[in-house]
């Protein structure tokens, strides 16, 4: 299939790409832009390892074509920190040990971030529902829930 040009805004930067229009967003982020934080863990849109944020919404980037993200703001885990300063959710993950092998972590962080944007003070149930689409094989999820609760409580408020 003929390649076509595509402009994608990822983590606040505009990338000019030349891609196969059938390419999934996760493929373009990883292989064309070179941001390998976002992972893939399945072929059936089930595991959430590829979760990114598109205009503040958590989206499994294996479930949409890259062209569908044109004109939107895509955010990956690499975009959480600003000039080396970690985002509250990242600090919370460090404090609570909310990761082990780390493979699901980038996607998990984006689901958490999107959840907090939508519900700044979620209940425990709401947090669990917010990350239901992300599989973690290592942590058993509870430390992730604790991290989100800590952020929601304001423990990492920036001055």
């Amino acid at each position: 299939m003929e390649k076509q040009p595509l402009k994608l805004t990822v983590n606040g930067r505009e990338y000019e790409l030349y891609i196969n229009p059938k390419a999934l967003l996760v493929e373009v982020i990883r292989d064309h832009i070179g941001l390998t934080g976002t992972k893939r863990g399945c072929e059936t849109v089930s595991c959430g390892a590829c979760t990114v944020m598109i205009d503040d919404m958590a989206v499994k980037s294996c479930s949409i074509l890259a062209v569908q993200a044109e004109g939107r703001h895509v955010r990956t885990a690499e975009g959480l920190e600003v000039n080396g300063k970690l985002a509250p959710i990242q600090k919370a993950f460090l404090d609570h040990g909310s990761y082990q092998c780390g493979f699901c972590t980038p996607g998990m962080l984006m689901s958490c971030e999107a959840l907090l944007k939508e519900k700044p003070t979620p209940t425990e149930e709401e947090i669990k529902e917010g990350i239901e689409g992300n599989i973690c094989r290592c942590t058993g999820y509870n430390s992730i829930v604790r991290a989100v609760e800590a952020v929601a409580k304001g423990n990492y408020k920036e001055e």
Partner: protein
Amino acid sequence: MNKYSVINTHVHNVDGIAKVTGRAVYTFDVKLPGMLYGKILRSPHPHAKIVSIDCGKAMEFPGVVGVVTGKDTLGVKQGIWRRYQDLCDEQILPIDKVRYIGEPVAAVAALTEEIAEQALDLIDVHYEVLPSVYEPLDAIKKEAPEIHEGFERNMNVTRHIEWGDVEAAFEEADYIREDWFKCGGQAHMCMETRAAVSSYTPEGKLTVYHSTQSPYYTQGLLAGVLGLKEGHIRVISPYVGGGFGGKFELDGAVFCSAVLSMKLCRPVKIVFTREEDFIATKRRTPMSYYVRTGVKKDGTFCAREAKVFTNGGAYTGMGATALYLTGFFHSFPYRWKGYRYDGYRVYTNTLPSSSMRGFGAPQAMFCSEQQIEWIAADLGLDPIEMRRKNAHYEGYEVPGQATIASCGIDQCFDEIQKWIKEKGPLPSNRSIGISACGFMSGGIFNWFDSPYAFSSAVVTINYDGTVELHVGAQDIGQGSNTTMAIICAEALGVKVEDIKVHSGDTDHCPADLGAWGSRQTLMAGNAVKMAAEDAKKQLLEFAYAQSGSNIIYDLDIKERRVHSIARPERGSDYFDLVKKVLRGKEGQRIVGRGYYTPHRKGMISPAYSYMLQGVEVEIDRETGKIRLIDSLTAHDCGQPINHLGLIGQLEGAFSMAAGYGYLEYMPYEDGKLMNPNLVDYKVIRATEMPKVPVAEIDTYEPAGPYGAKEAGEGLTNPTAAAIGNAIFHAFGVQMKECPIRPEMIVNALKEKKAKEKKGN
């Protein structure tokens, strides 16, 4: 009060920032210049002769650079139990025949993954289909097809454990119960599927990026199958996306990529799809258990006899170990006057079964802990007190097998009793089930036939006081880098931030058997402690000379302060000392070395962890659906080292163990896995996890560094049994098969009702 400065304090995982910022590079992410992408063609038949493979059309397909089959390999039959050549039975790319659906038969390297995938369809394999067999009891029949030449009746391995006069012990029993169980397999389902990038260069050297639990094993095994020297193979294991026992043998990704790379002299990357990971990577061993147990009417355990068949699948892998350990831990954590275990591993034409977190113990406990609960009910005894009176204790010798040097199980019983009492009466659709267990902290065996110490470490102190810690121990997410840094910092007397951990590279790190069998905290930890103390000694030698203090005074370093132990207020700075020592050593960096191999530590392990878990379950009578409400785990791992890591391991183990108990069903039909995807294979999600609080029991294990034992694998053992026991207490039905699916509960309830009606 914590007597340690670093140990068991709240330490951030040392790899944390890399992981939470997306910087961590996994084999899944590795890209090398000139790299090709590989794909594997797999057998659609469970058992067939490979008559011919025609790769001509595939070779001609634009973008394809090379194709390999078994004929391009040395044909070496390899296996991880190198000491037992008979059990090294797997060619990975077989030459003569295939033995399970999904087995690799050819591999293609191409410019893109898509091209490689398309080229697979162009490889023409001519099979002669053979009869196949899928269940152990069918495979041992006289008429069953022979899967491996020379293995009569498909008997792969047998293991036998026995102590005491079993017949006499049964004679002493007032009550004898026998039950049959069926334990399912389980998929490791690592978030990172199997992945490898192999790069062979004209110097005759091979560099392999491998998602592995043991770079040393990968190196050694590749050397064996490729005809290379170990020293000419470099294995780099950057961050690993989970292992759980599935990633310390050779897999199709690393083998096929290496063979392709050696043929083409270009880097080749192979990453398994999730489906491939399900159908073509070894799984937890399914087992059929027959258990006969005799007890006195006051609940004293007399005798137990178990006969177990394990479904070995097509190859041995680590299955022989699972066979042995299941029989050993089936006796845990109790004293038996007479105990007999006969284990038989049988070849079948299914996915090979191997090691998975728990290593045969989850299966063993599912059977043992449920039967014990039923015995208590039959005799009208309190199930916790019955367990308590028969439990291990410090100093107990499991006859001929092990001496228990530390054991906190008794306090575990107290904690669970307290928890149950505090819960009080439960709503009618909820119940609590408990399960005890114990586990090993690394095995004493050396079937890999390694000439190296089981674990080694090198500590190097730089001029500025920062410390390079080189270990062979592999971090696969369990946090071993952090645990080793903690032990090093404590032993040396500095802070974790001063330590830089180097692991996952056979070129720079010492050999280590790797992350399996719960061995690293104890074994690598001991090596690290020894190395750090060696380095510290060199610093203190100089400090003694400089201080000129009387020989009766001892110096130590703690929190970067060199001081007299008797007079801690008198001290000097660690950083200053390092600079002086370096000068004194003519500019040579201070290097400490450590190593550990267990000697004279019994037949299984230097140390055993203990635990008792209670799970509160809600069961819907109509649908049989299970909901986990709450839990408590009383846990003895000796001295906890990495506090955050420990909590994570506990909660994570619970999620995997619960999955084995009621979710992760792997149905096979005619040798084919029916649900090789994450839609149909159910792993636990955040919404299904209960709270998993832990009650830490304080013990001190003399064999472990600072008294530490394993944590994280033992905790995978009790949950399936606890869930089964909860169902028993709710409805009085006995679940003899795991994972326990809703329809099984519904059917059991129907059967019970029918029986009761008949009785009336």
